[in-house]
């Protein structure tokens, strides 16, 4: 007997069940997600990234930084992320919490959550490093003379994000505090600058409906998202 058509229909049905569950279902539930409001301030969350930050995200994508760095903080019961200081939201009333939520990635394309941590999680790296420190880290991650340098790190340097140029009338304000040939300085390229702007903008600190502030009202001592000058809504 020729079972061909039956096999085909059966396979098609199993395929549809899987597709329905992991593609269509999520799309129906959160595909149309709209920006929320921070609690209690009521500001819009999330906000668009600035032009430089968006360009930085492209550099992040092109070099596949997500191969080593995740951008997702797991709830307490599913990993030690919060205990390691990667999560910045404290939800005292709910031991599980949800520390990275869909809203955090609403305007990202592509969303680069990552699946391996050769380096630390970057979901809140903006609360730990500013643009300058990110640049030092990209230039020479193991240089302990630079702020943020970690001698034991396995992160490679990214020399192509920097250029050595002759010092003009005065040193460039962007110049890195590293010694090169006399009369020359190291400055980030546009790509380097943009990447640093993007990385320093990564922070998931706002309290929203899904992750409300702790009852005491006192956040974990971190800056609130909307106070950052680089993160104001696009008007």
């Amino acid at each position: 007997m020729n079972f061909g058509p039956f096999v085909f229909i059966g396979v098609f049905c199993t395929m549809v069940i899987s597709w329905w569950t992991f593609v269509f279902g999520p799309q129906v539930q959160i595909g149309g997600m709209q920006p929320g409001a921070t609690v209690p301030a009521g500001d819009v969350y999330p906000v668009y990234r600035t032009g430089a930050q968006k360009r930085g995200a492209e550099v992040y994508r092109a070099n596949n930084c997500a191969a080593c760095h995740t951008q997702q903080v797991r709830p307490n019961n599913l990993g030690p992320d919060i205990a390691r200081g990667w999560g910045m939201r404290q939800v005292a009333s709910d031991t599980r919490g949800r520390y990275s939520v869909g809203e955090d990635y609403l305007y990202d394309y592509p969303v680069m959550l990552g699946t391996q941590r050769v380096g630390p999680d970057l979901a809140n790296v903006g609360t730990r490093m500013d643009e300058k420190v990110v640049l030092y880290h990209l230039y020479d991650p193991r240089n302990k003379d630079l702020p943020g340098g970690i001698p034991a790190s396995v992160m490679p340097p990214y020399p192509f994000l920097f250029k050595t140029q002759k010092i003009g009338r005065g040193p460039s304000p962007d110049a890195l505090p590293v010694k090169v040939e006399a009369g020359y300085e190291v400055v980030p390229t546009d790509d380097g600058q943009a990447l640093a702007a993007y990385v320093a903008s990564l922070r998931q600190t706002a309290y929203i409906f899904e992750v409300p502030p702790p009852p005491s009202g006192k956040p974990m001592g971190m800056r609130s998202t909307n106070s950052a000058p680089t993160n104001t809504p696009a008007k």
Partner: protein
Amino acid sequence: MNATSTHPSGTRTEVGAGAESSCRLPLLVLYKSALIWLLLATVFGLIASLKFHAPHLLAGVPYLTYGRVVAVQTDCALYGFALQAGIAFVLWLFVRMGRTPVASPIMMTIAASFYNFAVTIGVLGVLCGDSTGFQGFEFPAYAAWMLWISFVFMGVIAVLTYSNRDEQATYPAQWFGFTALFWFAWICATALMLLLARPVRGVVQSSVNWWYLHNLHSIVLGFIGLAAIFYFIPKLIGRALFSRQLALFAFWTLALFGSWGQIPNGAPLPAWIPAMSTFGIVMTIIPVIAVVLNLWHTIRGSHERLDSSWPLKFTYVGLMFWFIGSVHLIVGAVPAVSSMTDFTWFTVAQKNLWVYGFFTLTMFGAMYYIVPRVFGIDWPNPKLIAAHFWLTFGGVLLSYIALLVGGIAEGYLLGDTQNSFVAVLRTTLAAVRVSTLGDLMLVVGQIVGLLNLTLLVSRVARRELKLS
């Protein structure tokens, strides 16, 4: 009846085996390019691995940052090698079991050439920084569409070959092969539409990406590999499959549960999505047991025959790796374990075992059986087959054990916040360095494999010249 000869390597050769000779040209292109892509994948893997020994290595070359090299490694292995070797095997399977020639060998060859062109463009695109940023789906849109179209062309020709069959009854191996082709066309179309053409919003992208990647591994590669296992093990051992019903049961339960995406348990998605994903993966324990029982009963009492031929050895070891890889996936999906092992080398170990262990070995088993039959010529040097087997098997096993132990240690140590992240990472570097040795063995193994195929092809060319 065709004249037959038994080569010392144990591969039976039937000279000029009728319909099968219609596969010559397509299989030549598919196998030759698949092996070249696999060699490239292992070379990129070795470069990535070496960067852990010397982070400065090639750091000044933007095309070869660790991230890009790792992405290209995955893409060369999945699209360059796995799908091509897979479609070559499935095509031959349809020809062989249906006793019918390939529907259009010329069109198949042209489609295969286009496919390789697409993979080349995709790999160059990723190296130049044009990656999409979606894991395992890095090829830029211009290459990905081309890849999909040429794959569908090849798939259609394979399906036409299947429907032209003389032998109406179908067997589990054909079901697995047929489903894999159909499945890839669908999941790739979904990913193209929802990630590249009209991207969905926010984290739905991640859900689609994970679903795609999991289906590519578990269903597409998994089913093609199982097709080879279900075909070759009973055939080469000389016994009928223990139970056709059990095979079909495994087929349907795997298609149902094996396709439920491998979403990390802590992912920032509504909780039911990772929960369903975990449930599906854990449920695959049923088909895994069914497959193992079925083949165990098939092999039982004939274990000494496993040593009788290289194709059988490759396939049998592939089956063992399939079992280990499946159990690894199931254990790693349980929240109690995943809270420790997610994002560590543990998950990388599973993916490497699946692609380079299970899939690669079963496909080599198939290749070592098919190619001499189709071309009517024996493998020039059986010692090269042995070297290929031991280097690939040893390399995969070494790399797997190192990364498995390293991953568990990493997860365990990270759980204690007294240990700094960098300190934990340095501890696990020992494991990564051992795995580099495995990667090196893999590279050498693939050079040997490619050399063997090249020698065979040049013999065929010489024979054809003599005949003409």
